[in-house]
């Protein structure tokens, strides 16, 4: 008989470790037509980091995502970066890119101030223009300003900056201190069906509500969440490296079972409205936490469905059926 169950799990996850130095640097160059180039030492590992970093630079310069080209990951040309690890790119590298873009933008403000007859601190960069704060009609096209600054004033618009979440050592005896700059939060709720004759578990639906501060690109956050859940489903139900005498006995995709599209549940994603003042435009991060609560939610749903408490992952059909038979016997 098929039994339905539901289970929830929430989690917290740190962004921007501070127990050791954790810097990123970036350079932003504005071209004479108002488009821009970003140099970053991070690596695109499939998560969309370069798109997000481009959006952060574009926001600071008041231009569109498509106006920015991001050059990455070449030690001969790009500045240092601690790397595509620990869900740090949007937060740490993002802050560096934002600060670098602001430096480049300040050069444009210096050039535009005499043209608009106001001090530089009265200017803002918006909609591909440099304009007087509160007077959008008083503006100059950003390309015109960049061209004027570079070819007339001899002041090319370029900025370099770095960001390091302030390093704070922890007490080695008690572990007390501030090990991370900020944290994200999430809840996932799973609905499962368990066959009480075979122990097989099918995850039917997962609702995932995540906090990442400001989502710089909501579509990419949703993509991270869906990918994280697929990893979580594998961790919960299928994946396990098996050993015999120290040798892996299933080091291949025939015998190491992981979820395919056919195993994936319906996923409903929502983001919590939140803003972290320490992140670029309020952003924190989204990479790793998406994979964190899935297995726990599924285990709680299995318990709700058939009363079996799984205490060692993965919850294979054999383990779940063993638990059901034990319950029936007692």
């Amino acid at each position: 008989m098929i039994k339905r169950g539901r289970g929830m799990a929430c989690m917290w996850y740190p962004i921007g470790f501070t127990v050791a130095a954790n810097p990123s640097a970036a350079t932003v160059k504005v071209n004479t037509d108002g488009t821009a180039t970003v140099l970053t030492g991070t690596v695109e590992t499939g998560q969309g980091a370069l798109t997000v970093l481009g959006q952060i630079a574009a926001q600071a310069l008041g231009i569109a995502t498509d106006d920015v080209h991001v050059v990455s990951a070449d030690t001969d040309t790009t500045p240092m970066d601690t790397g595509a690890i620990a869900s740090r790119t949007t937060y740490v590298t993002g802050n560096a890119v934002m600060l670098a873009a602001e430096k480049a933008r300040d050069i444009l403000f210096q050039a535009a101030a005499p043209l608009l007859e106001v001090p530089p601190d009265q200017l803002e960069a918006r909609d591909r223009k440099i304009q007087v704060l509160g007077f959008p009609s008083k503006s100059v096209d950003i390309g015109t300003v960049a061209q004027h600054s570079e070819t007339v004033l001899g002041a090319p618009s370029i900025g370099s900056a770095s960001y390091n979440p302030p390093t704070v050592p922890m007490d080695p005896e008690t572990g007390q201190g501030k090990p991370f700059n900020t944290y994200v939060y999430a809840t996932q709720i799973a609905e499962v069906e368990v066959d009480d004759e075979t122990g097989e578990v099918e995850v039917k639906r997962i609702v995932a509500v995540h906090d990442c501060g400001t989502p710089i690109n909501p579509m990419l956050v949703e993509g991270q969440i869906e990918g994280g859940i697929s990893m979580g489903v594998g961790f919960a139900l299928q994946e396990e490296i098996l050993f015999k005498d120290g040798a892996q006995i299933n080091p291949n995709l025939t015998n190491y079972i992981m979820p395919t599209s056919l195993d994936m549940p319906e996923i409903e994603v929502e983001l919590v409205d939140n803003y972290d003042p320490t992140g670029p435009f309020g952003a924190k991060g989204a990479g790793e936490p998406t994979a964190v609560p899935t297995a726990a939610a599924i285990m709680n749903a299995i318990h709700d469905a058939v009363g079996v408490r799984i205490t060692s992952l993965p919850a294979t059909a054999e383990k779940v059926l063993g638990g059901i038979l034990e319950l029936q016997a007692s």
Partner: protein
Amino acid sequence: MATRTKDVQTDADELVTAREARAPAKQPLTLPADDPVAFPLQLPESKARLQTPAVGQRATRPDGRLHGLGQTQYIDDLTFPHMIHAKVLRSEHAHARIVSIDTSSAEAMPGVLATLTGKEIPRNSFGPTLQDQPVLADDVVRHRGDGVAAVAAVTEQIAADALEKIKVEYEPLRPVFDPLEALGDDAPRIHGGDTNIYASKVIKKGDVEKAFAESDHVFERRYQTQMVEHVPLEPHASIASWDGNGRVSIWSSLGRITLGREDLARTLELPQSKIRLIGTIVGGNFGGKNEITNEPILAMLSRKTGRPVKSVFTRGDEFVSSTIRHPFTMDYKTGVMNDGTIIARKIRIILDGGAYCSWTGTTIGKGSILAPGPYNIDNIHVEAYAVYTNKTTTGAMRGFGAPQVCFAYESQMDEIAHKLGIDPLEIRLKNAFSEGSSSPTSQTLQAVAIKESLNQAAQRFGWKEWQA
């Protein structure tokens, strides 16, 4: 499938015929293996990419289009004139001393251009915290994934065949596979010294023993997690090439090139200015590509042969020699009042560290700090130990210990709710952090959104309306 292949062949033949018909006379044409896709120069642009302000836009990824058109250049797509291929021979034992390595028969094979052993690597150790891992084992092998020798040959197949000609004599040592056994007094010491524990972490807040005595209920349970692999679509891959100025360029699937170059400079004993490390677009990382693997080997083989040298892990290499997720054994003891308020939590975690340290430092730190869960608990004691075993090296993987401890703290949360007859949503809301809460390390938390996520998820799911 046969039919499909045949259809493709027929289509290709027709295409060649059609091209030849259009081609000038006497110019024999062949169809390239990879016929480039013709695509419009006027590309449709996503509106979100063109809009301001940029933040918050659902902008498409420029690399997404290249993936779709097959234009992304992964390492396996890169080739250079005179490029050759490397393969690494892995240990036959989980724990053994290497007595001798004889590569002469492999070197004599036609097509083999060079071999390499660990003794030829200028500084044969690496690791992000402890440099306890050899690039190629030259003294002791500590798990079956340890490389012991490498071959560079004109084709991948010849390199693979040549591995079988390498003779390695081992003196087997007693292995230990279970982390709890590895803690025992009589367990073999995998890295010498007087213990297999190589990292530990303690978090102490308040007085747990006093709070347990005051608790209405105490819950105790052991939770365990397994070893899992990242399984990126693209396995680890790299190419190394020396130039006439003594500079080496390395293309790699590594996710952290700044620190990767430091590791290369250290192992190769070269100034950083002599190394160019290029991170290509990576086909999936998930934490598994945070360390150098074959890069120093390829650099040495390239120096020996004067040619660019490439290696791409097989799926088997990926499983046995790259890092995987730490299994956790977690003992949770939690003191709770009748109304569901948690007042104490004591946690002991044993991490199966595998053969080398890798990213255990970060994993044990994050795992320990996060282990009590996102809850206001005044009395906390966490202690965690990472233990060497003769198994695959565990390292960074999406979440650094967080998925393991979340499985434990959220499973126990439901056990508590079930026993006390409290709704799982309500018990979480009762204990969850709020703005300004104090974390297990007494950090004042800001931008906290745990209750919001619980309520929003419950509403979206229909938690209150649910009927089984």
